[in-house]
């Protein structure tokens, strides 16, 4: 492909009428560079959970696209997402992954920024700048912040709609994810530590896989053969043991916005199956949660979410309650960050079971995700060859057979709910991707602020 040519993504590189996508979108440097501008500079991106910065002054480093951001709670309790980049020469003003502070001082020339991002200290302001620097114009770049049930998203673009509008018809699925096991919107708490690691593949492979690729289940045969579920029986999911009464399994949910969910629907009279008989406290907790969820949600308690992807690069997993973010780290590499959460009020025994299960399921030591990463790395390599990349990837499974199957009516909005394996979710994801990629960016360079004497 000619890197200089005018690219049209919709209908060409991403030809969803024919169910084909060019391998170039995973491996071409110029396309990757465009993604940073057209996808990441515009989209709402997950930056962390509010419990990671529980106290005033707390901060953690996070990322948006390729860039480092500070996610912090200022001394007044307000949440901020600030580009971790000094306005003077661009050095990181925060070099620690986690801590508590009232200010961020740049190591290079010692410009100092407050916990709200304001430039509050400039050495030699008088003798060097002759008081000609308007500090009010040179604070840290601050992103818009949305707090959705404690899950924090940020966006650089003023023209992108509010987060709730952006989330669109995924609300039912993501609300369900944000609910505690008892069906209430109580507090989740992130475990200490963030899993961060590198995978040799383009960032979209993880995002697409979690959007709804039930078709890849055979690659997890080895995890299915051992005892991974905390219930201590064969299988890898907690929900494998919840009930035997299923009305619809493997439901793929996709929205017009390109977001995706996965889940299943239990029968009306689904029962609680004792799961943790050897752990009384844990068993009691989940039994009680089941009863309360039934009571609270009624018919909608039959929905059992598995996870999904919020465009462009965060995947949520129910059951292990994790958020996995696929950060672009060059066209051929992804940096994955995962946090895991537990209900804040749950007994320690429950947290312990969840904590052990999650790191055994997902992440680099996770017995399931290990095989996923093998798949993505190899698929990426397969998109690089001169001959190989002349041939599009097939994304046509179930094309024309997308359904608004029940329970689509109460999932709400303009969504498709298709049972069993289908690539409708991937198609919805790449349709959105292509739409954004076809929109040229506005003027990128920010106007210089007026240099008024102070």
């Amino acid at each position, binding site marked *: 492909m000619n890197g200089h040519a005018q690219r049209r993504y919709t209908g060409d590189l991403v030809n969803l009428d024919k169910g084909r996508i060019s391998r170039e979108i995973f491996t071409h440097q110029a396309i990757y560079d465009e993604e940073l501008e057209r996808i990441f500079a515009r989209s709402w991106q997950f930056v962390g959970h509010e419990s990671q910065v529980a106290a005033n002054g707390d901060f953690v480093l996070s990322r948006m696209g390729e860039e480092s951001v500070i996610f912090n709670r200022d001394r007044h309790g307000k949440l901020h997402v600030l580009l971790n980049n000094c306005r003077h020469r661009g050095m990181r003003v925060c070099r620690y992954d986690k*801590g508590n502070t009232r200010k961020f001082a740049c190591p290079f020339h010692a410009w100092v920024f407050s916990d709200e991002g304001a430039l509050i200290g400039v050495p030699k302001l008088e003798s060097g700048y002759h008081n000609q620097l308007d500090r009010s114009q040179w604070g840290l770049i601050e992103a818009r912040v949305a707090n959705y049930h404690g899950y924090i998203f940020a966006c650089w673009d003023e023209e992108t709609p509010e987060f709730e509008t952006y989330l669109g018809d995924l609300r039912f699925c993501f609300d369900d994810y944000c609910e505690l096991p008892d069906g209430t919107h109580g507090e989740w708490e992130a475990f200490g*530590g963030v899993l*961060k690691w590198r995978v040799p593949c383009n960032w979209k492979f993880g995002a697409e896989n979690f959007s709804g690729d039930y078709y890849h289940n055979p690659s997890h045969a080895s*995890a299915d053969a051992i005892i991974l579920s905390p219930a201590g029986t064969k299988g890898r999911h907690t929900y494998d043991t919840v009930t035997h009464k299923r009305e619809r399994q493997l439901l793929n949910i996709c929205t017009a916005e390109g977001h995706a969910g996965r889940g299943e629907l239990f029968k009306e009279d689904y029962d609680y199956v004792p799961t943790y008989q050897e752990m009384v406290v844990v068993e009691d907790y989940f039994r009680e949660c089941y009863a309360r969820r039934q009571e609270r949600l009624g018919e909608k308690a039959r929905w059992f979410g598995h996870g999904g992807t919020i465009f462009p690069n965060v995947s949520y997993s129910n059951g292990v309650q994790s958020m996995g973010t696929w950060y672009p780290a060059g066209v051929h590499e992804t940096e994955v960050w995962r946090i895991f959460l537990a209900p804040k009020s749950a007994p320690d025994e429950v947290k312990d079971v969840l*904590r052990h299960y999650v*790191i*055994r399921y997902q992440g680099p*030591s996770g017995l399931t995700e290990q095989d996923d990463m093998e798949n993505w790395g190899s698929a990426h390599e397969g998109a690089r060859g001169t001959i190989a990349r002349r041939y599009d990837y097939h994304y046509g499974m179930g094309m024309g057979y997308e359904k608004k199957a029940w329970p689509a009516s109460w999932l709400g909005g303009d969504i498709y709910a298709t049972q069993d394996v289908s690539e409708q979710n991937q198609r919805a994801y790449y349709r959105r991707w292509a739409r954004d990629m076809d929109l040229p960016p506005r003027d990128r360079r920010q106007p210089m602020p007026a240099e008024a004497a102070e």
Partner: protein
Amino acid sequence: MTNQTVIDRLVLRHEIEQFFIIEAELLDTRQFNAWLDLLADDIRYWMPIASNRQHGKWDGEYTREGQDLNWLDEGKFELEQRVRQIETGLHWAEEPVSRTTHMFSNLQVTQADGDMIDTQCRFLVYRNRTETETNFFVGKRHDRLRRGKDGFQLSVRKIFLDQSVLLAKNLTVFF
């Protein structure tokens, strides 16, 4: 220090070195079940996650055992499951299986209290698989050995990897 004390210490050190050398040999020759036999039934096998912290505030540099996330936080049952998974021949992250070389150095016996011996060492685990996939895992290891009638068993292993962002796509090798 008497000559006998010196000799006792050298003998103990030699025994420990031999144990670790044999352990590494079993792992590098993929005799995973024989390796499992070296582990006490109540083994704690733990690898925390490192993060970058301010000078002097290093208490939080590694995630905490028993409450935070860790790269690995396993007992014997879980380690056995990991071996079982490799043995399926379908665990694609380890199929074809890795070539590994386990090395240790800087061995210190930090405490020898009867049958319970605490040691510290540095480790280097080299992994190469398929064609060019290569990782170096380097760090510190704190081990507790327990002497039984059939020799030593490993009862605690703490693995401190010198990386905050893991520069490997997975942790399918044993440390």
